[in-house]
């Protein structure tokens, strides 16, 4: 039997790879959050545009925000951005070199926790800021 000269190799196609493993689905969900972040930025941009057009226009924008469809959209967006935030802090240690404190390596959990804590504090500040402006 002769030795095969040209070896036939099989490589599994990548089609639908994200369905192979739940880990990948969560990853794709994280990546999909970008669509919502873009959309939200456009909503804000639109608000800015309406603001530049005067009070009536701006109030129109505010009214549009209160429609059920807008509320639903923002509901989903909030969830997606929240998921984005959670994953962002979860992988944060991976973007940093080791931090040594007193000769000991700072555990990843500490880095994640500080990120989350910062988000909570800043979000609270933002909330208070908006809340403080009530008439």
């Amino acid at each position, binding site marked *: 039997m002769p030795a095969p000269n040209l070896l036939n190799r099989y490589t599994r196609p990548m089609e639908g790879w994200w369905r192979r493993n739940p880990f990948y689905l969560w990853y794709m969900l994280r990546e999909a959050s970008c669509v919502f972040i*873009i959309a*939200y930025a456009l909503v804000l941009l639109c*608000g*800015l545009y309406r603001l530049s057009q005067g009070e009536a226009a701006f109030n129109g924008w505010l009214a549009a925000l209160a429609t059920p469809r807008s509320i639903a959209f923002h509901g989903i967006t909030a969830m997606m*951005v929240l998921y984005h*935030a959670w994953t962002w802090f979860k992988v944060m240690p991976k973007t940093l070199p080791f931090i040594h404190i007193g000769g000991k390596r700072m555990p990843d959990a500490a880095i994640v926790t500080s990120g989350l804590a910062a988000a909570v504090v800043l*979000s609270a500040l933002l909330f208070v800021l908006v809340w403080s402006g*009530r008439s």
Partner: protein
Amino acid sequence: MIRRSNKPVFWSLFGAGGMVSALIGPMLVFVTGIAVPLGFLLPHDALRYERMLALAHNPAGKLALAVVISLFLFHGCHRFYHCLHDFGIHVTAGMKAACHGFAAAGTALAVYLLLVIGF
């Protein structure tokens, strides 16, 4: 010689946007998109015209608005073309340019509007 990637520029913007949106994004969406329109936890008029105009007049306010809109766009657009790649779509240089161009245009528009609104 391996060609240097220009990712550092866009990745920095992506990272900055990711960080801002992770820190305050959820709250921002909640405030503008849910709480205020519904009057839930926050009053309806928390985002009223005068207040927002004052914010847009204030230099710090201007900066904040520009930064949020711009970085969210850069963050999102960068991820978006990675998404296309993940779905097996070949991302050409033109598509990348379009993504970044879109974010840049959004940024330019925001800056223009903030200037138009005046000080």
